[in-house]
């Protein structure tokens, strides 16, 4: 355990581990999910771009799992946390439970995620918890490109009209009830705010997120995402689509436990 984590009272440390688990699982799941486009994206440039985005996320996830492993300090390493949990143990936002779908689904899902994640990372940029603050400082420089790219795509699909716009609207509709789940309040989040680990509660982060995406949605005449339909289960009760993805990404590990590759 890092000294920074050892200084925290147990309730705050538990809340911190849930925050880290949420962030790491979000990056892990969207990384695996988007890597499904490798080889079959609608054009070569996007095949490269989506694969590169996925690779970034699958780099952020282990770095976050490593910080988490030091905080929980229960003998599990980053790989054990990442791979050795049943479906029910994953704590990613339900927005990421929606499967790959068509291109518009993946773009809409990633746009909603990247903008919410940017708000979350910003709220951690002056965190009192050093290991997370340092990592976030580095991650933000990479995520900037993701948000830039996704904003360009939303713009392109929404303003082209015809089928691209229709598909984007349909995707936003399908994701609507879970669109806001990335920033849904975490258990005991007030203790994190009071310890200076994050600078706002989920409710405040949600307001910042809406202020961030509002101008884009207004300019493109897109419907703003409604509040999460079931905020209490924002990170539980995972879907069939995730159950399938979990089978995919644990396949090697469960065939050869403890293998390195």
């Amino acid at each position, binding site marked *: 355990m890092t000294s920074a984590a050892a200084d925290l009272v147990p309730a705050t440390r538990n809340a911190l581990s849930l925050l880290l688990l949420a962030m790491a699982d979000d990056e892990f799941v969207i990384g695996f999910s988007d890597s499904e486009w490798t080889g079959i994206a609608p054009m070569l*440039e996007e095949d*490269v*771009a989506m694969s*590169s*985005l996925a*690779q*970034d*996320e*699958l*780099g*952020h996830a*282990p*770095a976050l799992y490593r910080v988490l492993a030091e905080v929980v300090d229960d003998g599990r390493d980053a790989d054990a946390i990442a791979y050795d949990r049943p479906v029910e143990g994953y704590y990613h936002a339900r927005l990421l439970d929606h499967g790959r779908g068509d291109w518009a689904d993946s773009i809409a899902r990633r746009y909603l995620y990247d903008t919410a994640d940017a708000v979350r990372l910003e709220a951690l940029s002056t965190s009192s918890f050093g290991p997370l603050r*340092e*990592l976030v*400082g*580095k*991650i933000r*420089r*990479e995520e900037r*490109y993701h948000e*830039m*790219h996704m904003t360009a795509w939303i713009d392109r699909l929404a303003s082209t009209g015809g089928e691209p716009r229709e598909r984007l609207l349909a995707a936003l509709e399908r994701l609507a009830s879970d669109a806001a789940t990335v920033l849904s309040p975490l258990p005991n989040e007030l203790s994190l705010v009071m310890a200076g680990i994050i600078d706002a509660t989920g409710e405040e982060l949600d307001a910042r997120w809406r202020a961030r995406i509002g101008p884009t949605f207004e300019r493109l005449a897109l419907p703003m995402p409604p509040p999460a339909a079931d905020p209490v289960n924002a990170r539980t009760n995972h879907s069939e689509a995730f159950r399938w993805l979990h089978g995919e990404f644990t396949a090697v590990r469960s065939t050869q436990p403890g293998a390195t590759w």
Partner: protein
Amino acid sequence: VSTVAAVRSALAEVADPEIPAISIVDLGVVEGVTVTDDEIRVELLPTFVGCPALDAIAAAVEDRLAAFGRPVEVRFGFAVPWTTDRITERGRRQLTKSGFAPPGDETCPYCGSANVLTDNLFGPTQCRSTRYCRSCRQPFEAFKVI
């Protein structure tokens, strides 16, 4: 010559595994070198959090420093974020020479033309974008500004 200086010049011979034209020192990846009688500690900064070349870089550093006859410990950290500003002038020249536009350089590394198109913000590795020169019709890669 102090051992620290000798270690640093040895590290200047360790090439980046993905762009062998540039050393890890010119890439700005080497943050600190500590030498004691018992060990050599090298602190490195990952260019990208998930850079898959990190293990290869650590192994190359350990190999190159084995001649100093004491245990080598290589650590990666984020306390100081690696940014493209850390690439040295010499490193930038070496990138251009091997066909990569250095970060922030908007011209073609082959013919120097500014008539260049960003084909894709993303490229074959996390740290690169792909571009196309409309003057000499050469596709090339550019370092992302991070």
